[in-house]
Each structure stands twice: as structure tokens, then as C-alpha cells.
């Protein structure tokens, strides 16, 4: 459905510069590591060099004796386990009894300065007893004798099966069944800002303030209360500017908790800055998956059924693992109509830095498998891959076999537009050997229907305060991690109140100043927090309307907010400046405070395990085309042009939406072509640095063409859906399909390094 004809926006839909951009351009924005509090000291974390070992003894007496050292803490100082999903905690602040990955914290030292704290780490003696190191999930499942967590047999963190329809019958009756195995790699968010934390414990009030770049401050708040054994009301999480998150900063990092413990112990502010290598060890990046699939088709290309088996390599701790497992199940059901789906999956512990919820979680992997299989089927059926996708594409109102309802979809438009913009139909199969073009599609959720722990509270509450002193202030717990949510939410308030973007002050990402917000994950902020913010502004308007209606002598329903004034929609001369109306309200009733909540409809999917992971209030779809050139001598793949059509609803800020698409393409190309964390056989990270962990540079990046899609979700705030994660989903798949078109080789694993390409071309042993 398109935007309602009568609705013209004044602020929404405009390419407005970010509110925080000028300060960032001047170097004035304060990130966590830029905070220097009075009386602040530094702490560093001692980490295990071994990937799996029992801790026999920790002796830190020599460290304590070093002049300038103030305190040393170990796992015993904070033994409560935690996890972002609170019902399966496996992780403690520092390891207790054993370490499960190389880089796991075993102790932390606070000292007068950073250098002394670093020197002190060398003086902590840890005696380990080595245990078998399990790095491969398949092997880990066979080694029940070497459990990484005692409670988890065969090292299986979680295992599940979902059955919708009758897959065996559907596949047996199919004209064609594609059977294949795909593997994805071990990648990490690699935001440019390393983790850091500053904790400030007030011993008199017994209150803790923690500053750190966390995407979900209200969830960290909960974790802190649990780990510190403190009441929540004594804790404040305040988030300075965040230098990128991409899912990797959704969970408590070791530095957050170590800073808190040491600050309480010392009664003074403690900063814990990470090195880049520590940020790699913290990881919480994308789960490597081994995906086996069978995908059935009718002769005319309609999909009959999908049998999907997934083994996820979880690394050492629980993290978001169960949700990611079930997301890979849920993401099988869209964006194509499939009546019969079976999912079998398991998440396995290994001795690696833990995997978590990296941007587009679950989707990137599933897309790589399904979009690859679709192209194979297209070849076998003699149907163009675009046509094959069109025949199966879902539309608004579709309900999946798993019971998930799709209220709004412009997926077919994405496919059509991206194919037209890229010249896909004219180019595929017709470019010279070594050049190719590939199509892939995907979709993503706009927030979740359920919370990470059992509760019915709204996922977001926002406050709009309007008075004669501070003007219009939006209070929201939503966290801007660089995606631009502060500006987007302010645009919504400005639109609703008929003022300019610059008239809105935003107070955000602080648990003491704003009510609960579920946080920045699952592409939920624009849609979910946006609803709460819009309702808060509407609530303020409702209150103001009573005064204004009396002032102007018109019915309240006729009032209209535009250009900084309130007027009758029908008699424009009946008009009052907003500031005068507010002044009248303040004089007669006091400050104006509007409140808005968002609690999504708890429409569960089918009653199958994991049915609560994946359903979303709405879904964004996308289709992308990569055009590549393979250097037949060096094996190097260059992406020449990249086209992305994104059904994100009405873009609140088109410039920010493009930025999300362009950044997603970059991260997706990195995973497709060059990024991978490599480990030694002993489980040590071999490339925990930004030189050998190869993410695309300005020279590697192709031109990215954002292809227009006309989209407006009538149930969404100002018609907006998500754009932060959907666009990364198809990238690797599009590249693989393009490489197949270029050299006729179908790859089933990433990254597509030059060595793999040369080997496939028969040019290397």
C-alpha cells in the first residue's frame, strides 16, 4: 500500500543532517573513553592464554605489591552467572574454576594509571591444567568426555526441531529437489570504537553509575543488578556516544562488569578501556553455521517444501545463542511461500570467543543457503532466477506455515526494481567469462513481539515534555549507536507537533532519565520506540488541545499542527503560535507531559519450540544484485556495482536509510570476500587486529546504488519499517550467485578468498 494521498510530511521523509553530526565533526562528541572523571583510576583485565583449561591457582600477591596498584579482583569477587537471556546464564564476570576460550578474563587490576595496571597483569600468576580444546562443533558433539559446560551433554547448548506441514511427502512428490550443504564463517562486528567502561560508585548513597557503549542499557541494568547483587533502583546506566555496535554491544562486556566491581571496591571512578585484541576476544559476532538443506520444486518453479538442518557454532558461552538458533528457523519461512518446512538445529559450545547477535542475525546464514539453492533450481528448471523468485514471493497479508502473519510487503516491487536498475536480465549469462551478475533477496523483522525475559511491560515508553523553559524535550531509552535513532525519533516528534527538527531536544540512552526501552537490537527502534514516541507527542497534543480549542473557539478535533502553530484545519485564521498555547497551558495547568507506550500484539506463531523467536509486528523485504569481476590470474574478486532495493516502508530520513543500506552492504561484502577470524589449533585467535582481519576499505568498496521502492506500512509510525539489518541479509548470497555467473563455479562457503577461487579454477594445488 502506498502512502495515503492526503498525507504530506513536513519533517518526516526529509534528508536532514543528524542532530549529533556537527559535534562529531568537530571532535567534541564524548565517547566512553573520552570521559575523564575526577579521582578516576584505570583497570585492565588479565586474560587466559589457553582456550580450555582448569584454573588451579591464581596468585596476585606480586601484582598487589606493585606501587600504584590499588586492587585486584578475580571470579570469586562476582560469582553470579549472567546472560543477555537471563534464563540460561553460563558466563561469569571472570572465569571461575575453568576458562573456556583464549582471552577469557581471569582477573582484573585497578591502578593509578593505565600503564601500571598493564604492568601488574604480568605479575599475576595463574596456574592452569590444560583440557582438550574443541574448535569444531561437529567434533565437540562427539566429545561428551570433554564437556565445556558440565551441564550440557555432548556440548549441545540447545537442540530443537520444528515441523510444519509434511516435508517428506512434499519432497517425495516434487519435480526437483535441490540438496546441498553451505557453511558460513566466523566474523565479528568490528566496530571502530573498542569497548570501554567507566564506573562511578558512590559509597555514601550506595549507588552505581556505569558509562559504557551498550546498545541495550535497560538490559545491562538488569544484568548489573544480578551480578552486583544490588537493587535496580540504585543503578544507573548512562550511554555516551557509541562508536558502532552492530549487535556486538548488546550484552554486558567484561569491562562493564569489572569496572563496576572495582569502583565499588575502591569507592572511586574506574575506567576500563579495551585494546583492539580484547574487543576481538569479547566478540559476540556472527554464528558460523553448517546448513544442510533439501528444497523441493514443482515443474513450474513453485517451492513445495524445505528441509533445513543447521548446526551453529556458538563459541564458549550462551549469549543470544538460543534466539539465533530459532531465528535461523524462523527465517526459513520468508520471503517465499513454502507450505512444508522442517527445521532441525542445534547450537554447540566450542572453545572460541562467544558468538552472539551480529547485524542480521540468523538471516545472513540462511539466505546464503536458500538463495544459492534457488539459483541452482533456476538453472535446472530452465527458469530465470528472477522469475523463479517472483513466482514464490510473498505479498501483504500472507501467513507462513509457521503461523507468522505478514501485514505488509513490497517484496515483488523490490525484485522488479532491482532487476531493472541493474540490467540483471540483460546481463546474466551474457557477460564475458570472469564477469558475472547475481541476484539474492531477503527480509527482516521490525522488532520482536516478545521480550527477552517473561514480562508484559511495554517494550518502549517515551515522554514528551513541553514547557516554557526547555521547549520540547523527548525522553527515550532508545540508544543511538550511530544508526541515527536520536534524529529519526526527533523527526517523528517534530512532524507530530508541526515544528522544525531543531526545535526538539532529545534526552536518550540513560536509565535514570528515560523510562524502559527494550534497546537497540532486532531492528526495533524506528518501528517500536517510534510508536511510543509518536504516541507521547500525540498525548501531549491531546492535553494541549483542550486549552487551544477554548482559546480559539473551535472543536479540538479540528486542530492541526504546522509551522510552529496550532490552527483550525478548516479556518486557518483561527490560529495560535505553539509557544503561546504552551505558555497558556503552563500557566493554567503546569508543564505539559505526554507519555506513550508501545506493547506489540503478542501474536504467537504456532505452538512449536521457538515460536516466540521470529514473529514481529512487521517485516521489511529486500532484493539485491551484485556485479562482479573475477581476476582469473590472481583469483581476486572485485565487486564493481552493487544494487539494493529495500522495502523499509516510508523512510523517516532517507539519508540515514541509505547509510544503513550502504553500511550493511560493506559488512556483507566483508563476510563474503575477506573477513574471517582464524584460530590456531590451540584456539588462539591468529588475527585479532584490523590489519589481518580484513574488512573492506574505501578502495575495495563498489558503488552502492540504493534502488527506490515505494513503500508505506499503514500500521507503522509514519509508515516506517526497518532498514538496519535487512539489507545485510542477501549480500553474501548475491556475491556467490554473481561469481557462479562469472566463472561457473558454485561456492558453498565464505569468505571467497583468492586461494579458494584459484583452486576452483584449477590453478592451485
Amino acid at each position, binding site marked *: 500500500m502506498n502512502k495515503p494521498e492526503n498525507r504530506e510530511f513536513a519533517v518526516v521523509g526529509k*534528508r536532514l543532517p543528524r542532530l*549529533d*553530526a556537527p559535534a562529531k565533526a568537530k*571532535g567534541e562528541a564524548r565517547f566512553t573513553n573520552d570521559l575523564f572523571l575526577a579521582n578516576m583510576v584505570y583497570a585492565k583485565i588479565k586474560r587466559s592464554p589457553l582456550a580450555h583449561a582448569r584454573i588451579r591457582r591464581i596468585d596476585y600477591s606480586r601484582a598487589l605489591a606493585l606501587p600504584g596498584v590499588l586492587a585486584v579482583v578475580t571470579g570469586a569477587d562476582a560469582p553470579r552467572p549472567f546472560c543477555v537471556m537471563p534464563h540460561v546464564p553460563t558466563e561469569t564476570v571472570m572465569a571461575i574454576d575453568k576458562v573456556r576460550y583464549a582471552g577469557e578474563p581471569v582477573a582484573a587490576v585497578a591502578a593509578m594509571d593505565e600503564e601500571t595496571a598493564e604492568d601488574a597483569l604480568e605479575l599475576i600468576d595463574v596456574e592452569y591444567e590444560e583440557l582438550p580444546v574443541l574448535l569444531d562443533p561437529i567434533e565437540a558433539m562427539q566429545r561428551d568426555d570433554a564437556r565445556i559446560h558440565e551441564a550440557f551433554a555432548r556440548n549441545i547448548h540447545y537442540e530443537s526441531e520444528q515441523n510444519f506441514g509434511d516435508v517428506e511427502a512434499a519432497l517425495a512428490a516434487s519435480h526437483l529437489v535441490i540438496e546441498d550443504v553451505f557453511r558460513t564463517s566466523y566474523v565479528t562486528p568490528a566496530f*571502530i*570504537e573498542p569497548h570501554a567502561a567507566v564506573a562511578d560508585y558512590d559509597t555514601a548513597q550506595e549507588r552505581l553509575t556505569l558509562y559504557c557503549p551498550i546498545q541495550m542499557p535497560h538490559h545491562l541494568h538488569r544484568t548489573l543488578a544480578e551480578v552486583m547483587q544490588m537493587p535496580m533502583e540504585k543503578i544507573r546506566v548512562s550511554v555516551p556516544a557509541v562508536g558502532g555496535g552492530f549487535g556486538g554491544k548488546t550484552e554486558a562486556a567484561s569491562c562493564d562488569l569489572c569496572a563496576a566491581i572495582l569502583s565499588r571496591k575502591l569507592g572511586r571512578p574506574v575506567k576500563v578501556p579495551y585494546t583492539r585484541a580484547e574487543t576481538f576476544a569479547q566478540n559476540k559476532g556472527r554464528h558460523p553455521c553448517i546448513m544442510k538443506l533439501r528444497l523441493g520444486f514443482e515443474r513450474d518453479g513453485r517451492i513445495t517444501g524445505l528441509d533445513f538442518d543447521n548446526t551453529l557454532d556458538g563459541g564458549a558461552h550462551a549469549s543470544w545463542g538460543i534466539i539465533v538458533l530459532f531465528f535461523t528457523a524462523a527465517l526459513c519461512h520468508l520471503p517465499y511461500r513454502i507450505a512444508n518446512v522442517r527445521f532441525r538445529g542445534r547450537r554447540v559450545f566450542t572453545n572460541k570467543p562467544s558468538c552472539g547477535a551480529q547485524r542480521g542475525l540468523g538471516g545472513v546464514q540462511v539466505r546464503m543457503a536458500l538463495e544459492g539453492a534457488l539459483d541452482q533450481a533456476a538453472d535446472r528448471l530452465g527458469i530465470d532466477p528472477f522469475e523463479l523468485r517472483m513466482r514464490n514471493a510473498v505479498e501483504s497479508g500472507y501467513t507462513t506455515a509457521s503461523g507468522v502473519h505478514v501485514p505488509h510487503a513490497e517484496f515483488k516491487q523490490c525484485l522488479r526494481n532491482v532487476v531493472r536498475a541493474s540490467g540483471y536480465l540483460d546481463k546474466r549469462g551474457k557477460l564475458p567469462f570472469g564477469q558475472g551478475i547475481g541476484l539474492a533477496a531477503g527480509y527482516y523483522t521490525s522488532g520482536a513481539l516478545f521480550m527477552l525475559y517473561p514480562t508484559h511491560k511495554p517494550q518502549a515508553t517515551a515522554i514528551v515534555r513541553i514547557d516554557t523553559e526547555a521547549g520540547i524535550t523527548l525522553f527515550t531509552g532508545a540508544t543511538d549507536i550511530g544508526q541515527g535513532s536520536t534524529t529519526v525519533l526527533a523527526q517523528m516528534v517534530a512532524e507530530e507537533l508541526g515544528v522544525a527538527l531543531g526545535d526538539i531536544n532529545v534526552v536518550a540512552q540513560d536509565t535514570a532519565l528515560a523510562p524502559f526501552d527494550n534497546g537497540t537490537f532486532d531492528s526495533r527502534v524506528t518501528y517500536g520506540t517510534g510508536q511510543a514516541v509518536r504516541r507521547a507527542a500525540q498525548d501531549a497534543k491531546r492535553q494541549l488541545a483542550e486549552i487551544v480549542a477554548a482559546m480559539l473557539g473551535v472543536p479540538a478535533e479540528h486542530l492541526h499542527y504546522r509551522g510552529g502553530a496550532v490552527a483550525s484545519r478548516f479556518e486557518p485564521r483561527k490560529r495560535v503560535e505553539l509557544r503561546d498555547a504552551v505558555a497558556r497551558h503552563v500557566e493554567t495547568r503546569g508543564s505539559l507531559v505526554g507519555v506513550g507506550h508501545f506493547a506489540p500484539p503478542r501474536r504467537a506463531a504456532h505452538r512449536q519450540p521457538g515460536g516466540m523467536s521470529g514473529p514481529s509486528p512487521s517485516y521489511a523485504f529486500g532484493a539485491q544484485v551484485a556485479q562482479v569481476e573475477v581476476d582469473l590470474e590472481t583469483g581476486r574478486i572485485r565487486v564493481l556495482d552493487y544494487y539494493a532495493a529495500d522495502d523499509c516502508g516510508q523512510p523517516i530520513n532517507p539519508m540515514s536509510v541509505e547509510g544503513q543500506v550502504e553500511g550493511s552492504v*560493506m559488512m556483507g561484502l566483508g563476510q563474503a570476500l575477506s573477513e574471517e577470524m582464524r584460530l590456531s589449533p590451540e584456539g588462539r585467535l591468529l588475527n585479532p587486529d584490523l590489519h589481518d582481519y580484513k574488512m573492506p*576499505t574505501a578502495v575495495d*568498496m563498489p558503488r552502492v*546504488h540504493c534502488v527506490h521502492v515505494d513503500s508505506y506500512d499503514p500500521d507503522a509510525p509514519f509508515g516506517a519499517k526497518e532498514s538496519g539489518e535487512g539489507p545485510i541479509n542477501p549480500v553474501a548470497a548475491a556475491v556467490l550467485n554473481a561469481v557462479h555467473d562469472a566463472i561457473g563455479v558454485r561456492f558453498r562457503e565464505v569468505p571467497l578468498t583468492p586461494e579458494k577461487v584459484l583452486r576452483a579454477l584449477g590453478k592451485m594445488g
Partner: protein
Amino acid sequence: MKRLVELDVNGQRYDVIVSPRELLVDVLRKKVGTIGPKKGCGEGQCGACSVLLDGEPVVSCLTLAIACQGRKIVTVEGLAPAGRLTPLQQAFVEHGAIQCGYCTPGMLICAQALLDENPHPSEAQIRAALVGNLCRCTGYVKIVEAIQAAARGLEAGPVAAGAEPASARSTP
């Protein structure tokens, strides 16, 4: 042996005591108080800590503070006189070249150095000049556009609502 060093940072003289191993990035951030240069890696691999040293861009995390005695250092804070944005900074703001902003100080320093040397760089020259500056948010698209716009001198004034930069758009 710690030593007293005179640093000229953004046109101001600072006397700081440094050890021979202390890095310029740490001295700027902790002792001078210029937090613009960011430490993204500390190993010369991300470019976020870039500053101009006698007009040349260097990574301040691989520069010893002690070696900067008497040399002219410009951090991102020094680009904007009296807090007013330079055309390049303005272009970054207007074109959406800043997302999280952590790479921005280094990007601006290196882009400014490029434009000082070559006021009309080609797109390839711009990309080559930024090869040592990693950005994880933008895919570099809008950063390159902003530098092109600054070079064209088209950056001033607010971008018209609904205006589209030519290179990132293709309408089917």
C-alpha cells in the same frame, strides 16, 4: 627518563612531561585534553587517531610524543576555527558521512590533507587517500560524496529537502 616537551597543538603551546615511550595519541587525549583523535586500534591500522604533523597526516598511535617537540600538530578540533565548521566538515554533516562518528576525526584529517594537496581529486584519488581509514558504518559511500562535494565547493547551505546525491541513486 621523563622529559618536558613543548607541543604546538592547534596553535597553542602545551608543556607536557612525557616518558620516551609515550604515544602522541595518549598525550593528546590525556594530557593536552584534545579527545578528537580516537584510539580504534593503537596499532596504526584504523586511522581514527590521525592528526596533521607539520601538515602531513600521521597516525598518532604510532608517533612518539617525545619526537613532536616544537612541531605543529593539528587535531580535528583544530580544523574548525572558533567552533565554526569548515566546508569539509559541513559537507560531512550535510551528506550523512557521519554515522557513529568514531572514524570521523581521522577521516576529516586525512581528507583535509588530501584537499590541501590536491583541491580537485578524482573519486579514485579520494578512495586511495582514505585507504588507511576504516569506517564500519557508512560503506564509505557518503564520505566519498562529502569530500567530492567539498571539493566542488557545493557544500554550503542546507541541503534542499528531498535532494538526492547523484551517485548513490538510481531510479528504475
